[in-house]
């Protein structure tokens, strides 16, 4: 057991700290996406190795070694300051690793660098109205017509569709193959004629997601990653990525601190909520769970550095436990505020910009999204505990 990162990393942290300090004046609020200011900032981060650190130089990355601890130090130091964070999003987290592993040289050249620089924003076209938990049953159709794919169908839960230039999309191209073997992974420019985007208004009052309709959308035949019918495999590499990223324990811990602060400042008849033992005990139960999650995350971090640590289970449970716990934590905050906890939007007396109600609902969405927690339990029992898959039902 050694929780120190060691002197090399202390030096690195000092370097990051000084970068952060030097750039604390940078402010991109109000700058539009893909504006030169944003792209320049992104490039600066890449040049310093604070972003795209292990991606080869030839594709626009920093070209360094993979180093999870440095990645973590960067995240920690950036989190302490209001300076602009490195870009995230599905293009960077899912598409780039996929292309680097399975894309053609042309695809890597065309897409990786501008994606890293923020010049191309991607959206993900996976889920369909009738294919949620059972994603592999998706029906959006792609037919090869000469040297073009013709795409018809509908996607849903597409989060950045309104801003995206490109969509990485799962499309059924081999209708006669078994369902997992009939899918291809296509790259679709969002300005292609025949694409319509409709935002989905959600319970939080925002519309973070969209439906995307494809009607005779034609794209070049070369816009496929991997072979025809291999799209399921191509996508699965990146799905793994997504699940791991949903429950950052540092964010959870910060949220717990904010809850403690809230319970110290919120009062009932002049008495602080934290001084009411029934509330306090609920807080402490949550704190215990958060600390357990934090330790689990340390173990995962360690296993990504040190070979040979088996963390199958520790990894599979993070989405389930993380989303449920966060929902519970936000719900406790609402109870601590009582009536004031129901305030929302721009109400007078609103606490913390309404983030508690917002997160309470949003994390219910995350309990559902990204593989519902029922699917997560299937996965845990089957892949980590070795229990049997649901038996096949005739005709299903």
């Amino acid at each position, binding site marked *: 057991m050694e929780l120190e990162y060691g002197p090399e990393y202390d030096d690195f942290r000092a370097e990051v700290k000084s970068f952060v300090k030097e750039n604390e004046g940078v402010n991109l609020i109000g700058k539009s996406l893909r504006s030169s200011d944003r792209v320049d900032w992104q490039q600066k981060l890449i040049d310093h190795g604070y972003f795209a650190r292990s991606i080869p130089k030839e594709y626009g990355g920093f070209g360094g070694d993979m180093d999870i601890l440095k990645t973590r130090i960067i995240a920690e130091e950036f989190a302490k300051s209001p300076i602009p964070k490195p870009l995230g999003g599905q293009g960077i987290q899912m598409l780039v690793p996929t292309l680097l592993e399975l894309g053609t040289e042309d695809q890597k050249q065309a897409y990786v660098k501008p994606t890293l620089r923020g010049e191309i924003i991607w959206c993900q076209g996976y889920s369909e109205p009738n294919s*949620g938990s059972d994603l592999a049953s998706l029906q959006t159709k792609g037919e090869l017509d000469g040297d073009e794919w013709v795409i018809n169908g509908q996607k849903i839960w597409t989060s950045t569709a309104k801003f995206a230039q490109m969509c990485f999309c799962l499309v059924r191209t081999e209708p006669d193959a078994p369902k997992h073997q009939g899918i291809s992974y296509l790259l679709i420019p969002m300005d292609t004629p025949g694409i319509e985007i409709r935002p*989905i208004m959600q*319970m939080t009052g925002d519309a973070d997601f969209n439906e995307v309709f494809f009607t005779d959308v034609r794209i070049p035949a070369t816009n496929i990653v991997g072979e025809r019918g291999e799209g399921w495999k191509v996508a699965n590499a990146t799905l793994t990525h997504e699940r791991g990223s949903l429950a950052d324990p540092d964010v959870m811990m910060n949220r717990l601190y904010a809850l403690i602060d809230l319970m110290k400042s919120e*009062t009932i008849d*002049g008495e602080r909520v934290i001084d009411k033992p*029934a509330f306090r005990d609920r807080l402490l139960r949550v704190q215990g769970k958060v600390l357990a999650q934090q330790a689990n995350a340390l173990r995962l971090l360690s296993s990504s550095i040190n070979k040979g640590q088996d963390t199958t289970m520790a990894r599979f449970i993070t989405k389930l436990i993380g989303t449920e716990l966060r929902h519970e934590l936000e719900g406790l905050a609402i109870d601590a505020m009582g*009536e004031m906890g129901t*305030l929302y939007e721009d*109400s007078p007396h609103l606490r913390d910009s309404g983030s508690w109600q917002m997160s309470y609902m949003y994390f219910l969405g995350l309990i559902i999204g990204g593989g519902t927690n029922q699917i997560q339990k299937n996965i845990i029992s089957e892949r980590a505990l070795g229990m049997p898959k649901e038996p096949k*039902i005739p005709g299903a």
Partner: protein
Amino acid sequence: MYFGLSEEQQSLEDNIKKYLEDNASLDSIKEVAGGDSAKSADIHKGLLELGISGLMVPEEYGGLELDMLFASVVSGALGSGTAPVPYAGAYVMAPIALTLAGTDTQKENWLPKIAGGEAVVGIGLSEYVGAREDAAITASGKTISGRCLFVIDAKEADAYILANKAGELYLVDAKAKGISVTDLVTVDKTRPSIELNLDNVEAELLPGSENNQDIINKVLDAGRLMLAADSIGASQVMLDKAVAYSLERKQFGRVIGSFQAVKHMCAEMAAELEPCHSMIWHASHCYDHDPSQARLMACHTKAHVSEVGKQISKTATEVHGGMGFTDELGLHYWFKRIGLNRQLLGSPELVREEAARIQNFDQSPAGGQSKKEVGNPLLV
């Protein structure tokens, strides 16, 4: 011995549900949530014709003088339909407060108007229940000053009944000088919340409430029962919708309602919710007919239903998958209504503490108020 709704109660419930199905569709609720006050006024008018305003008003003042079980039944039906109308405060708590504590003049001035659907009286007990932000009102001569948060049914009300910390109730005309009304925006768009700030506003004490917390407690119990009933109605709809959706929605070649995980989620919701129906009936009955149990039952019903409702509103949303998160399906109107009910008139921890005080847990010795079991505890 008959434990359940009478035919009249059942038919009142059915009528209101039917009315709301026909006149307060999800689309209408969305319009109201979007700010269409004409729409909510229409719905309100129709419900007044069904008699919701006169249930609690004594016959001599033109009301129906029914018992609390009627009021709960109506509240449950309104919760089922997320009805965007005043009720718990204006038509249950306010007339009870006036009837129990008002002068003849006060009663004559207001009760007939309430029964006739001509007046809405909002009610503000938050300071008494547990003051947030140090909101408080103080009386001085014939005026009161201070702040009341979360005055129920007070948006566009004609008058307010407001409690101070001691539980004394003051009647204030909404047009009186010195009142400023601030909208509070909550998650629940079906029932507006407001804050009142009062600067030397003319006010009449409801004299029965002076130095007598029994009155405000009776008003509070009634309000808590209404909120609980509303949440039960809303929770039942969420469960019903979850079951129905699970029988339509297919994944992996079968309806999701055939998966044991989904079946058990629904069974757990049903198992938690079903006793709540009986509980609100029992608590409402005790309100009128068993004073020794009335307060305890009202507190426990409010708290227990709030916990069950929270769980159901989560689980039912989960059964709906991504669609449960959308505005399109609109499940969140019920989710948020249950969420607001949970916090109004005391969140569960506060109400349970009150239930403990009612039972004198802090004073009585062991064996004091309880009977010891006879015989083997395993004999079931």
